Structures are given as C-alpha cells and as structure tokens.
C-alpha cells in the first residue's frame, strides 16, 4: 500500500530545511511525497515516516487538492504559486488555514523531477487579526453555509464603500453582528460603532436619543446632551428595527441621510453628521412601504445595499459549528469542560425549526449548561420545547409487570423474534429472558 521513495535531497540540504520554521515538502512526478521537513511534521501533525511515499493530497487534505491543486498548476504552467491561502484538514477534524507557495523541482540537468511546496500556519495570524480589528469581524460570524459565504465574498467591498446598508433577517439571525463586521472592515473601524434599537424606545425619547437635546428643550432636560449621531461621529451608527420608526421620525432620518445634518431637540442650528448608517429590520419593508407605514423615499435611501441574512433553518449545516462555538464560549465564561452534545441531541437540533434562530440555539445551550453534569450535553439537559416526544412511551396507569412485558415485546419485535438478540439488546441473559417470557405470558410477535 505505501511506497517508500528514496530521499531526494543530500543530507546537508535536509539539515538546513529541517531548521526553518516553514513547512517544506517535495513530490515526485506522481505527486507522492519524497521529502518532508520537521516544520511540515509539526504543522500537519503527521510524522515524516507516514508522509513519505503517500499522495500529497492524502497528507495535506487541502480544500484545493481535487480541483485546484497548486502543485499540479505549477507542473502544468511552469509558473510558481505564491502565498496562496488554503485550508487543510487536521487529523482532529479541525480546519487549519495555511499559506502555500510552489515551484518546480529540477535536477542538475534542468529536468523537471517533481515539485516543491512551502507552507506556513497562518491560524495565529488570523486569530491576532481578529483580536486587533475588533471582537466582531466577519470571521466571528460562525458559518460555513453557501448562502453566508456569498455574503462574506461581497462584505469587504460593501464595508469599503460608504453606502448605507439595510440588513434584513428574522430575529436572532445576527443582524447586529453583521453590522459590526461591516464597521470593522471599513475605513471607519477606528471610530465609534453606536447601536440604537429604534423599536425599544417611544418616539419622543427616540428623537432625543438619536439627535440629542439642548438644555431646557423639555421637562427634565437639565443640560445639553449629545445624541447617538454625535457619539458616532466619524464612525458607524446602527439603527436596528428601523421598520418600527414612526412616520414623524422617518422624516427626520430622511433628512440626515439626504443632507448629512440634523438638529438636536430644542436647537435651531444644524449639526453636520459624518456618520455611516447601517439599518436593520426583521419586518417586510416592502410591505410596509405598500401599506404606507414606511416612507418610500426613506426606503430608497436606506436600501442602497441590501444584505438578507438567512434564517438558521436555511443554513442548518452551521448548527454543529454554532454548537461548538457556544459551548467553547460558555466553557470559558463558566469555567466548565463540556466537550459537546450527544448524537441524539444533534439530531434534535437538526430537526428543530429554530424560529428564534441562532439566539434560540444559544439559549438552549446555555440552559443545557445549567442542567448538564457530564462532559456531553444529553437530551435531558435540553429545554422542554426541545425534548423529543416519545411515541413509544408507555401510557400512564400500567403496572410494573405490564411495562416490563411491553418493553420485552417491543424488543422482540425489533429483533424479529430472535431471543438471543433480544436478550443482548435488553442487557439480560438468555435464560432470564426465557423465564420472563413464561412468567409474563408474552407471546412471540408474528413475523412480518
């Protein structure tokens, strides 16, 4: 099964290559590994002895191996690939981002004898970048779904533009997270990000909250107070639940978006607003416009760039990732060591509709943390609405003997009347099963 190739490089070259931090490996013309340096062993977690002679795609397990192999491209074109970011799969099932470069390997006569690839682990760089740019970069939006990947592809361009953005999506889909990601990828990332929930405040308070007020503007206004637009100066303001804003306030928002200025409550002079506006709503804005509950001119001002976030139901492949993420976070916060969920719990999670989306999932995990006493979250730790309804549960009012008889009968049915298999499933001896069959007068199920 494994071919063992002769070492390709003289010993001194191997010694030098073993001392560098980048992984280096070479392949022959069949793309089987012929050299594997120490850093390659450390980054991949694969010993040289297991890598030599194996197809390089089985050693690296990269996302480009099947269709976009960099070594094959270099072999075909003769041109090196430089600093290509790829993901490889480690033996623990985790993906590792690395940066690779390739070149042709030639012998002394200039004949191509294979290829050489260098690579480095960039996961630390990725983690540091995440810390430095903000807590919420788009890398913190946990998703591998196709729909979200399409959004991620255009997100940097959206962020770099100064356009107003409207984010739509059901409650709990991560609209604020997306807004923060846009801010952290924009030129305004070093300036404030200010979030306002427009649906949480009555109109009179919201106006003052957004635009500020002057001393004496109303009862209780004992001094000047800057509004959120002023606090966000130079940065980004996030107007959540924009669909809930009253018609009167919609007019004022329209003016801010059109003229880039506003008046604090009680003031007659305007203040300039150098603020990037990101809005969000979980309502059907188009329907609100149709019903004349939302101004059409304001709609066109906020709907310059639209991002529609899928519900969790539409990206169920993200559920295991989100579960892992929430568990890791709660482990850190609660100093626990929960390792995951049982397959039964995962099945329940995958079958559930999640009307509350990621937030509901997070709450379910948090609930389970309180009840869970083991390393794995099991069904009994889940909230009531996620507990599976067992159609085979015995009805109330049966005696213990009747419940026992029912259990044995159901096990016999599952095993097609085979007593040895039934006894094994129930965890009892065959002779014990025979005695119970006699005592409880259980008839063998008819064969189907």
């Amino acid at each position, binding site marked *: 099964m494994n071919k063992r190739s002769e070492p390709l490089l003289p010993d001194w070259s191997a010694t030098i290559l073993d001392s560098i931090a980048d992984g280096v490996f070479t392949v022959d013309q069949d793309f089987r590994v012929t050299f594997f340096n120490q850093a390659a062993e450390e980054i991949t977690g694969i010993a040289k002895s297991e890598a030599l002679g194996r197809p390089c795609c089985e050693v690296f397990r990269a996302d480009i191996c099947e269709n976009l192999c960099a070594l094959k491209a270099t072999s075909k074109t003769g041109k090196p690939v430089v600093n290509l970011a790829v993901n490889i*799969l480690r033996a623990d099932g985790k993906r590792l981002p690395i940066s690779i470069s390739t070149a042709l390997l030639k012998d002394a006569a200039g004949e191509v004898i294979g290829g050489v690839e260098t690579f480095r682990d960039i996961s630390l760089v990725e983690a540091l970048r995440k810390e430095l740019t903000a807590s919420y970069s788009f890398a913190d939006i946990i998703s*591998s779904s196709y729909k979200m990947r399409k959004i991620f592809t255009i997100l940097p361009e959206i962020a770099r533009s100064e356009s107003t953005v409207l984010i739509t999506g059901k409650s709990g889909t991560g609209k604020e997270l997306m807004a923060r990601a846009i801010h952290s990828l924009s030129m305004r990332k070093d300036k404030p990000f200010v979030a306002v929930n427009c649906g949480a405040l009555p109109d009179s308070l919201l106006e003052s909250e957004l635009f500020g007020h002057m001393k004496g503007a109303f009862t209780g206004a004992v001094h000047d107070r800057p509004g959120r637009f002023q606090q966000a100066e130079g940065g980004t303001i996030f107007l959540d639940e924009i669909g809930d804003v009253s018609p009167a306030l919609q007019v004022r928002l329209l003016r801010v978006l059109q003229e880039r200025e506003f008046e604090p409550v009680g003031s007659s002079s305007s203040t300039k607003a150098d603020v990037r506006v990101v809005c969000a709503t979980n309502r059907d804005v188009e329907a609100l416009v149709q019903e004349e509950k939302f101004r059409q001119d304001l709609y066109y001002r906020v709907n310059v760039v639209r991002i529609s976030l899928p519900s969790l139901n539409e990206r169920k492949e993200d559920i295991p990732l989100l579960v892992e993420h929430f568990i890791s976070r709660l482990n850190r916060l609660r100093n626990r060591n929960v390792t995951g969920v049982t397959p039964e719990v995962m099945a329940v999670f995958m079958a559930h509709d999640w009307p509350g989306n990621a937030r509901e999932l997070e709450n379910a995990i948090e609930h389970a943390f309180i009840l869970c006493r083991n390393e794995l979250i099991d069904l009994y730790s889940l909230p009531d609405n996620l507990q599976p309804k067992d159609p085979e549960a015995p009805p109330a009012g049966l005696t213990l003997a009747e419940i026992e008889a029912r259990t044995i009968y159901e096990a016999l049915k599952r095993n097609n009347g085979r007593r040895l298999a039934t006894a094994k499933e129930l965890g009892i001896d065959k002779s014990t099963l025979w005695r119970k069959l006699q005592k409880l007068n259980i008839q063998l199920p008819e064969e189907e």
Partner: protein
Amino acid sequence: MKVAIPVFQNRVSPVFDWSTRLLVIETDQGCEIRREELTLSADSATSRIDSLAGLSIEVLLCGGISAPLFALVRSRGIRVVPWISGEVNEVIPAFLKGKIPGKGFYMPGCCGKRFRQSFIRRNQQQRSRNQRGPDRPRNDT
C-alpha cells in the same frame, strides 16, 4: 446495504467535505451487487448530507472529514468509517471482508485504534444505551 465512498482518481477522496464524486456500492450478504458513481453537490454541507440520506446510504466510508460534518452525518443515522485511504478496488473488498478499518488502509497521521476512538469520542461518539437497536452502527472505530 448501501455504502458510499467519496472518490478521487480511483482512490478514496482525501476529504469528504471537499470531494466532488461519490461511489455508491450496493451489497448483499457481504458481496457487491451494484455500483454507481455520482456527482456530489458542492453547494452546501446540508445538501451533501441530504444526498446521502436520499440515496438511503447506511455507511459512509471516507478519508478525512471535518468534525462538524462528521456530527451531521452521524445525526442522520449514517455510520461513518473515516480516515481511510487506498485504491477503491482494494478498499471495497477489504471493507466487505471486515478488514476496514485496518492496517494498510489508514490515512497518514490517522493510524491505530486509539486515534480513531479518540476522534470519534471527541466528536460525540457516545450513544445512550436506550438508543441501541438493530440498525445501531457497529464497530465505528
């Protein structure tokens, strides 16, 4: 029984997450009776797993598989035998004879019973006793 094997150039594909071709083997009493090669959807992990479930796959014999995808496939009641490598025409008979997982068919860095048990345990292998039944995956090691 239906067994699915993601394939690449006549070998088990290195990573199920990123593979594009799927070989489906139908067996009866330990012998192969039919095989068919299909294209795997590249759209999403969910559609990939829906394809397996739609084909009534009972066993996924694969190379590398990420932890989340492993959990997803298992949650659909499909037995997963991961980290296998080799020529498809050698892997299939070996599997039908019960020699997989086994020496000579492991991916680099994934050898040995201890590794496999550790991977599966880390990625939620535990099943409650109450869930055992005739279709319980056997020997997921």
